[in-house]
């Protein structure tokens, strides 16, 4: 029964769906092709937003610099943040989930292939809308939005941002939101309904587990953002009064709405990367993940808690000590399941046989960098420290350690790990190691010093700064680091381009990995498993196949 449902996915036969020419990419409803589309669009926007970051770092290299006008700088940092979050990180993770989840659970496709295509294209058009705002500068209408990715009212209201930039931002984000939401629904349905025989929840690969949790977070909070965006649009276009204090609205309400979405969004951006690390680290340690149940359960715990921490972004708003303390406690509580994950990944390394592939290097880099980002997060949960450091460069450092040191390192680990599966060719390990070390050095050079800048009182989102003692040197170091990081990205892109054409042929399972995607060919055919899905009797089906005398089941029984 399940098989019939799977092969009917999308109502198309395999022949219709086979890849024919580049136009097939536009019409495709195949989860793998859509996954690749997500990954490419994410890569393109990553380059764009990276260039924006370099422009900012050039402007900030010296005090009282005149490289960018304040208006331009403000547009650029708004677009950098918005792009990185909505058009780079989330699509990259959804892209991987799209490609891998059906393979990992032995399914033919996602549950709703057409919805899947709709989601990608809604997101793509949202991205185009967002960037179209730059064109309004040509009509003297102000250009891109200049209100930050958080678009605090009343600055984002028509009285203070009168050009159409913010309107494009709202419409663009609504499109992207619809895309993300459909992806969330699709992934949940896929994981719940299309698991192959024997793939119980207790045996799901952890990447699938984290994708499931992320799917629920998406479904819970993206609608909150979209509702808020529509309210803001009503304020701007129809003179509604949701967020305008001058006519009875509430500026604080926007912050509640935005962060109710905004903080779980952080976990939407990091949980799938946790999942990737949980796949990569065991394979290159030659051991199963340590404490599978705890790694999975801590992900669920993080997601639940993340819904109750939003006001830690608002400690400086003046909500009163009782509210601040509540959100301090809930925010600190998140550190516990996060710590559990870090300890379990680390424990997986022990008594293993560690293969330092590029993927593993990025995973280890993730462990160290994300720990720094997580710990500085604990500092922010301590309310009085937040009173000093919020909106300073310390925050900029903190969330880049989470989202670059965490998510981006995790995604790079995932790219080096799954690129052979997706393309049939290996990425160059030599170039990969260069890429890793340049990234590691450039990243730390750029962002470590920003902790200190924040402690020395430099506010964030400033287009320039006075020549206070030390600020110039620290900013210059950060700018140099940003260029090293940009060079690292260039190395990565070259590696991808070269390896796509002439990389070593991968074979089905180049890493000796254990999850189902490695049982198919590289790349997998449209129907994923033409010769049937291998039997699933444990968490590592391919290990069980290779070691019939020592399957996970027997090993676990022996351990008890």
């Amino acid at each position: 029964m399940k098989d019939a449902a799977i092969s009917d996915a999308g109502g198309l036969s395999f022949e219709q769906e086979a890849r024919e020419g580049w136009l097939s990419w536009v019409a495709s409803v195949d989860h793998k092709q859509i996954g690749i589309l997500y990954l490419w669009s994410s890569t393109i926007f990553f380059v764009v937003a990276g260039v924006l970051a370099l422009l900012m770092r050039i402007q900030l290299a010296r005090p009282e610099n005149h490289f960018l006008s304040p208006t331009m700088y403000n547009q650029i940092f708004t677009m950098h943040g918005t792009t990185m979050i909505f058009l780079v990180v989330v699509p990259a993770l959804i892209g991987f989930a799209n490609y891998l989840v059906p393979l990992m659970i032995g399914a033919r496709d996602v549950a709703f292939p057409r919805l899947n295509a709709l989601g990608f294209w809604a997101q793509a058009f949202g991205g185009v809308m967002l960037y179209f705002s730059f064109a309004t500068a040509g009509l003297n209408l102000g250009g891109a939005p200049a209100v930050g990715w958080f678009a605090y009212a009343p600055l984002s209201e028509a009285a203070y941002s009168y050009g159409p930039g913010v309107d494009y931002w709202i419409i663009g984000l609504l499109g992207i939101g619809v895309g993300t939401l459909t992806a969330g629904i699709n992934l949940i349905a896929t994981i719940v309904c299309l698991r192959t025989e024997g793939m119980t929840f207790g045996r799901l690969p952890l990447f699938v587990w984290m994708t499931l949790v992320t799917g629920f977070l998406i479904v819970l909070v993206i609608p909150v953002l979209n509702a808020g965006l529509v309210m803001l649009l009503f304020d701007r276009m129809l003179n509604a009064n949701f967020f305008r204090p001058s006519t009875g609205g509430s500026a604080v309400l926007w912050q509640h709405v935005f962060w109710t979405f905004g903080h779980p969004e952080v976990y939407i951006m990091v949980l799938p990367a946790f999942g990737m690390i949980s796949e990569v680290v065991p394979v290159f340690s030659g051991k199963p993940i340590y404490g599978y149940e705890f790694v999975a359960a801590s992900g669920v715990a993080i997601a639940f808690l993340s819904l109750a921490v939003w006001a830690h972004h608002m400690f400086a708003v003046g909500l009163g000590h009782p509210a601040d303390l509540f959100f301090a406690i809930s925010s600190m509580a998140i550190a516990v399941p996060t710590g559990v994950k870090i300890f379990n990944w680390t424990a997986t390394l022990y008594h293993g046989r560690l293969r330092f592939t590029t993927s593993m290097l990025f995973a280890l880099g993730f462990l160290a960098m994300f720990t720094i980002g997580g710990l500085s997060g604990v500092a922010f949960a301590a309310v009085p420290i937040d009173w000093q450091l919020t909106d300073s460069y310390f925050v900029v450092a903190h969330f880049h350690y989470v989202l670059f040191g965490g998510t981006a390192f995790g995604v790079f680990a995932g790219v080096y790990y799954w690129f052979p599966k997706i393309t049939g060719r290996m990425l160059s390990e030599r170039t990969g190691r260069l890429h890793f070390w340049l990234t590691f050095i450039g990243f730390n050079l750029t962002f470590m010093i920003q902790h200190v800048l924040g402690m020395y009182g430099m506010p964030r989102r400033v287009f320039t700064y006075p020549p206070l003692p030390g600020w110039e040197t620290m900013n210059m170091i950060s700018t140099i680091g940003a260029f090293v990081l940009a060079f690292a990205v260039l190395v990565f892109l070259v590696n991808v381009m070269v390896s796509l054409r002439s990389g070593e042929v991968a074979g089905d399972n180049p890493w000796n990995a254990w999850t189902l995607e490695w049982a198919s060919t590289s790349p997998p055919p449209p129907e994923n498993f033409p010769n049937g899905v291998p039997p699933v009797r444990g968490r590592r089906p391919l290990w069980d196949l290779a070691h019939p005398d020592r399957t996970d089941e027997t090993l676990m029984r022996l351990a008890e």
Partner: protein
Amino acid sequence: MPSPYDTNAFTLSPASPQAAAISQLFVGTLIFLAAILVLVGILIIFAVVRYRDRPGAPEPIQSFGWRKLEIIWTAVPILCLVVLTVCVAWTMHVGDPPALEKSPDLRIVGHQWWWEIDYLKSGAVAANEIHIPIGRRLLLELRSADVIHDFWVPQLARKMDIVPGHPNRMWLEANTPGVYLGACAEFCGNEHAWMRFQVIAQPTEQFDAWLRDQLTIPSKLNSSDAQRGGQLFVDRTCANCHTVTGTPANQRIGPDLTHLASRRMLAAGAAENTPENLAIWLHDPNTFKPDSNMPNLQLSTDDVHDLVAYLETLK
């Protein structure tokens, strides 16, 4: 004259009891977090060195975890965080004491992109420079004239948002005389970067003398240039936005200029207050502060000269 920016705004060199409490918590927490980081770092580095793949190494034991260890590394962090929470609650109380029903001493109004300071007890009005007597805890009321701003003097107090329609209160105090740098810490539009201010903490006698000066109307104009400048100020559009007490200029859209010449900085920190800089500012505000709300009035060089002569008399 030393640059007004030869001092820093280091959060860990507090100059008030409130900031000291926060700084203490910060240092303690940093040490605690650094210890955890070192622990995790050592665990990772040890594993990387010890368990790297060597030729002929046997297949690793396929272990799945150990429940006791999981309980330990769940419970120990919880205990640490309980301790931290207690410290946090205590520091919140000391670092930001409740204001109760006391009436505020100062009202700070955040404008795009400058600060208005109203001394509520005496009626003095200042801009971008807050003079306070040392050793006295002053209650501030924070209000916004437009968008959200944030009041931050790292060495003296917590930061506090200035939210339109949501007046906030906080304490400001300094132990020792000095100039403490402050800035707007919430993004508020074009010139957010140049919405800086200074807190000038003085011994009580000096502060009282300053306050007396602020309450006096500047003396009559002595030079003809200044007289012409004063006329220009009223005739041209200056008076549409600014106040100079004792003249018909009484608008409060821009900063009160009654004692402009006594201030250290121009344009909320964008330039030092010298006659030369003032002339540049009047000539083309974009030089120091592009896209600010101060318009370029297309003044002739003579007009600028006379206006500067006038404004320099406003001590």
